[in-house]
């Protein structure tokens, strides 16, 4: 069991323990790249004002979602937050249905009822995205309880941002998950901010690592921008969970590049420094991995361009699909108030 003793160095030892197959490396890279390009496409088209809902982009955080999503099986269940695009795509989500949802179309994954903040698609295990901080966490615990009662070997994932740690419901959920030894993976993406407020203005200077520990939940703390580390740590966590050791906590350090909500950069506002941003940009998860794969000759400049091109084509298809899809019929607004 990997139980951090409050040290930040438990770290990425996991990734040293395995070498990835080429195929896996490529898949991880290609998914990160896809998330990056999709989010950038949303950002660049947002000012057309056809995506008429708030969007919280995951640019800079692609490795966290991808590493976790790829380690999960199709049957595992994911509960996400307001920042859910990457989680959905990494869980095998349908890009066209996601873009259509953001465009408010009938063909969206929930018919345009939720928009970007409510991406859900139970068919691929994307159970829900809830834009109320911490609100999805107990749902993942309940889902794990249900599968445990039925004897299903399924893991439920609760994605949370660093701000969720401040909500009572997180601690109540952690307590119950551990008490009941439930197959839950807590994935905390620590991007240091809640909207414009740095974590040091919201939490005392203790490490987040001490919190799962206090709840008796084993954890791994890892560089959330290192895709192989995230992937390996998640596999390890899942191993532990599937051996019926109860919940596990992954703490992933990462950084959001754009504004909290919306398509723009916002370093000019002054709540974070350009220098901090640049430091994190140096740790670009996509670029780092691109370099690594080039060095290992798993990709070449040509195959990389080709891959980018293919993803871009897929994105164009998805946006065309969304924009050509019908809006939901007005009369259907009243449907599904009750089952």
């Amino acid at each position, binding site marked *: 069991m990997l139980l951090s003793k409050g040290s930040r160095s438990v770290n990425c030892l996991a990734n040293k323990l395995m070498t990835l197959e080429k195929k896996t490396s490529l898949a991880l890279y290609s998914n990160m790249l896809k998330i990056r390009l999709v989010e950038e496409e949303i950002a660049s088209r947002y000012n057309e004002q056809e995506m008429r*809902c708030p969007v919280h982009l995951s640019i800079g955080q692609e490795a966290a979602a991808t590493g976790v999503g790829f380690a999960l099986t199709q049957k595992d269940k994911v509960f996400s937050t307001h920042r859910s695009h990457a989680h959905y795509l990494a869980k095998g989500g349908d890009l066209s249905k996601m873009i259509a949802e953001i465009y408010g179309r009938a063909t969206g994954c929930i018919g345009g009822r939720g928009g970007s903040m409510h991406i859900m698609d139970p068919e691929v295990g994307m159970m829900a995205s809830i834009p*109320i901080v911490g609100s999805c966490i107990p749902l993942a615990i309940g889902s794990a309880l249900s599968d445990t009662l039925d004897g299903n070997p399924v893991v439920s994932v609760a994605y949370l941002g660093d701000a*969720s740690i401040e909500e009572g419901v997180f601690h109540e959920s952690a307590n119950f998950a551990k008490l009941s030894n439930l197959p839950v993976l807590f994935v905390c993406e620590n991007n240091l901010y809640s909207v414009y407020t740095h974590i040091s203005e919201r939490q005392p200077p203790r490490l987040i690592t001490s919190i799962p520990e206090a709840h008796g939940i084993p954890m791994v703390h890892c560089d959330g921008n290192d895709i192989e580390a995230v992937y390996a740590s998640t596999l390890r966590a899942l191993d532990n969970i599937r051996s019926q050791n109860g919940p596990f906590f992954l703490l992933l350090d990462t950084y959001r590049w754009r504004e909290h909500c919306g398509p723009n950069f916002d370093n000019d506002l002054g709540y974070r420094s350009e220098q901090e941003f640049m430091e994190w940009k140096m740790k670009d998860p996509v670029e780092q991995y691109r370099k690594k794969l080039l060095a290992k000759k798993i990709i070449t400049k040509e195959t990389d361009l080709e891959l980018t091109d293919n993803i871009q084509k897929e994105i164009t298809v998805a946006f065309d699909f969304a924009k050509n899809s019908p809006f939901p019929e007005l009369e259907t607004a009243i449907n599904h108030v009750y089952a």
Partner: protein
Amino acid sequence: MKNNRSISFGEAIREGLLQASEIDPSVIHFAEGVEDPSAVFGTLKDIGKEIGQNRMIEMPVSENALTGVAIGAALTGKRPVISFHRVEFAMLALEQIANNAAKFHYVSNGKHNVPLVMRLIIGRGWGQGPEHSQSLESVFAYFPGLKVVMPARPKDAKGMIIAAVEDKNPVLFIEHRWSHYAVGDVPQNYFSTGITGPERIKTGDAITVVATSYMTLEALRVADALERVGVNIELFDLRVLRPLSLEAIVESVKKTGKLLTIDTGFRTYGIGAEIVSSVIERSFEFLKTAPIRLGLPDHPTPSSASLIKNYYVDSIMILEKISQVVDIAPSVLEQLKKSIVNERNNIPIDVPDPFFKGPF
């Protein structure tokens, strides 16, 4: 300098909060991002610089606990103002609000006071959908012991936020985000409107209309349009949901014999339901037509703009309802509708209407 000048509702809130905080050192503030570049939609901007950062307390994303903290501070001599970007986030704090804030004075046999202001911002638009655009005022208005206010116009925004801070009770101060943009004349000096009941903002005998919050602005547009064709409605801005004072509205209904209520929230179990029943109890024999309630239909708010075309009450809807019980020639009605449509100038239904500029 002129005492009155034209500022927005949002600026009026900020001015009121700043002046109240300067006058009374026991005022302290809590909010998420209290000092951030947005500072709760500008309403707390730089207040910390004026009154001291120690009185601007950054609230971790812990709504229930911090509401309890604010109540505890209120019990012991402070006047906390806790601001929420959206009413939904305050739902996490419902336990503290309902069990503690609303009950302390009563249960302690008057020994405790909870002079607390909770600012809850409601709103709509830009596809914010089911969990970021609810109007939950009737949830809070349910509890005796809470005061619940919903200003609509800039002057009231200032006068009522000051009244709320001065009050000895927990006041839930509910602001519609679209009202924030409304501009109107607001005195520069420190003044309080008190937490006092409805204000008659149009006098007439055609029908009594009672609106809350942003709906007051939509109703005002209708009142102005009707005035141009010689129909005068009596329009009340309810302002205070609890304690509910209906005297003036009852008197008005005795005069007009007709009543229309307009909620920002759900029609069923809405504020209109309470007003209609309470007013009828006291004016039954004066009614000439059945009262009408307008509010949201019985389903959550979908994100897609295409699903909300008939969802929100607007001036056209209000005008149509009024025309069902007030004599307006069909041609005149059509012409009025056209002029409102023109005024709206095709702005989409999911962005605020820039039309609402005072003087109110």
